[in-house]
């Protein structure tokens, strides 16, 4: 058993950390305040290959695998949940759907510019009536010769307004239900009929954009069907599996920053004539949190190793997402509590981290859904089938 990272991955971590500290950290507070996607910094990330971390080099990627991608997500998560979200939605679900479900031509045409960061991806599954119940989507795709005509409205789409290439799930045969009746399509932003609707005014991750995407009689060539016709459910479930793992990695980064800040403050802040770090109430919070962060680290990188060695990982990815987001939320809660009133002030970054953390318990499948996925996976071994 060997817990060490490869030399390449160690070098990648140094690069990602320096990029995060040099380019992302200085703008983290401003992009939240200004509700602005830092496209200039996204471009700089692209120049270093950070928009194609897990994809093979023959498709313009970095070729660093899931372990490499988790390293990058962790380092970005340490400084900005917004930035980690932009990259996560682009690589982890948007481009990942094309990598997992696409044929060779689609990978050359679409994945390559995405991996190089020349174009930005989004993943469009959620609708007003289809959140956790993803199979309830209403967006329709109707065949018209060599084209499909797409109509519907996608909601809460991360990168929605900055994406050039959108992977869209649409119903192709309502009679077949989710398995067989949903197909994944690659939709270019430039296709006539693609419109960006409402931009969400969010509580956190305000440096990333979340938009409504409206599809009105959008003609999509049949070559843009992603994966087998009618297998959209499988394409998006596989993509979401990957996204969940790296979301856990980003949460690992965020939790570490919260822990470090909480400790720095506890060591510096004096009450009753001594640093509050001398108080057992503080020590216990820190000790428990540090333990959970270490457990999360092991879970995240073991799961990434399962992916890179092509072993089943679905339940572990769900655990990464669920546990990671809950550890991150706990971490920012503890940090804010230790900071006290100062943490509640917008002069400090703790309140931003507190607002940012909550979304990880909700997006990419709520934590309730993750528990169902985990339980379903576990009980399958006992011959019990669980459906939400």
């Amino acid at each position, binding site marked *: 058993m060997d817990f060490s990272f490869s*030399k*390449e991955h*160690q*070098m*990648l971590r*140094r*690069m990602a950390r*320096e*990029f995060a500290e*040099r380019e992302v950290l200085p703008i983290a507070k401003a992009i939240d305040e200004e509700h602005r996607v830092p496209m200039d910094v996204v471009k700089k990330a692209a*120049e*270093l*290959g*950070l928009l*194609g*971390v897990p994809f093979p*080099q023959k498709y313009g*990627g*970095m*070729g*660093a695998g899931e372990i*490499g991608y988790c390293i990058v997500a962790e380092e970005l998560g340490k400084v900005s949940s917004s930035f980690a979200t932009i990259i996560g939605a682009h690589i982890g679900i948007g481009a990942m759907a094309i990598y997992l479900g696409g044929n060779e031509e689609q990978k050359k045409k679409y994945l390559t510019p995405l991996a190089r960061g020349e174009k930005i991806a989004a993943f469009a599954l959620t609708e007003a009536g289809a959140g956790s119940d993803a199979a309830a989507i209403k967006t329709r795709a109707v065949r018209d010769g060599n084209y499909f005509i797409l109509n519907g409205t996608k909601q809460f789409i991360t990168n929605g307004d900055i994406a050039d290439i959108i992977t869209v799930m649409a119903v192709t045969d309502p009679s077949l239900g989710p398995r067989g009746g949903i197909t994944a399509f690659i939709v270019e932003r430039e296709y006539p009929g693609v419109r960006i609707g409402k931009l969400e005014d969010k509580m956190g991750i305000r440096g990333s954009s979340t938009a409504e995407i409206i599809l009105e009689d959008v003609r999509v060539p049949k070559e843009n069907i992603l994966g087998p016709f009618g297998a959209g459910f499988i394409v998006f479930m596989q993509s979401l599996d990957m996204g969940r793992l790296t979301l856990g990695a980003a949460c690992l980064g965020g939790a570490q920053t919260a822990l470090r800040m909480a400790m720095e403050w506890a060591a510096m802040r004096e009450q009753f004539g001594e640093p509050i770090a001398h108080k057992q109430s503080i020590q216990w919070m820190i000790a428990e949190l540090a333990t959970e962060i270490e457990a999360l680290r092991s879970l995240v990188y073991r799961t990434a190793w399962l992916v890179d060695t092509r072993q089943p990982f679905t339940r572990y990815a769900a655990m990464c997402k669920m546990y990671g987001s809950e550890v991150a939320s706990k971490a920012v809660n503890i940090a804010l509590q230790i900071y006290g009133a100062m943490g509640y002030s917008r002069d400090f970054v703790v309140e931003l981290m507190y607002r940012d953390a909550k979304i990880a318990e909700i997006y990419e499948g709520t934590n309730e859904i993750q528990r169902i996925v985990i339980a379903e996976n576990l009980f399958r071994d006992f011959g019990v089938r669980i459906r939400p």
Partner: protein
Amino acid sequence: MRVIVPIKQIRDPRGVKADPRRQQVTLEEAELVINPTDRNALEEALVLKDKLGAKVTVISIGGPEVEDSIREAWACGADEGILLSDELLAKADFRGAALALAKAIQKLGDFDLIIAGAMAADTCQGQLGPRLAAALDIPCVNDVYRILEVSGGKARVIRGWDEKFLEVEVELPAVLCIAPGANVPRLPHGARIMNSYQWEMPVWKASDLGLSEEDLRPGVEERGLSFPPERVRGRVSRGSPEDLARELVSFLRERHLI
């Protein structure tokens, strides 16, 4: 055009822990990184590669772990790297290391520029550049902030001079010692990082450089490390300028400083 960049691997100063009470410095937990100013030097070399198509050769001396830093420099864009490493070289002091690097550079053949960091962040000696220039009998410009132009067998550079800047022209080949913070060094591209261990790195021993144990015998003996004495807290005085001046003078007189 060939540019040689000697780099040094050091413990990341940010990870070094000092405990003055126990008179202890813990180095081992700090990450091994390329000396920050050497990254500035590499950046200047890579700019010449971008502009003039220069071939950039990175060279370093040390244990086998130094290979990682050379490969990181390659990932940043250097064309090749050479490691000088064996038991004899490991014992070398500043003079020995500079001698070995000079021999290696001679072994490489023709070159136009040696671009070095002005100082290593661990030892703060600033000896390498001038020593290389002396050993190779070529000019050396220290404290270089910017390379303006390299053409016609000459380089025009801006160097620090007192508290001003001075434009200098130097004949090639020459050594340029880059000032700390002269530029923002580029980060390595991810794909190059992933490929950085896929080429064979030449490792030269002292014997390959024609150096004997005698040549590399250290001239400096290290007898131990100690902390600077703890500083006494300063005294703040208040009063009229006349009173303050009187107090200051008597304070300095008491200590026989004036």
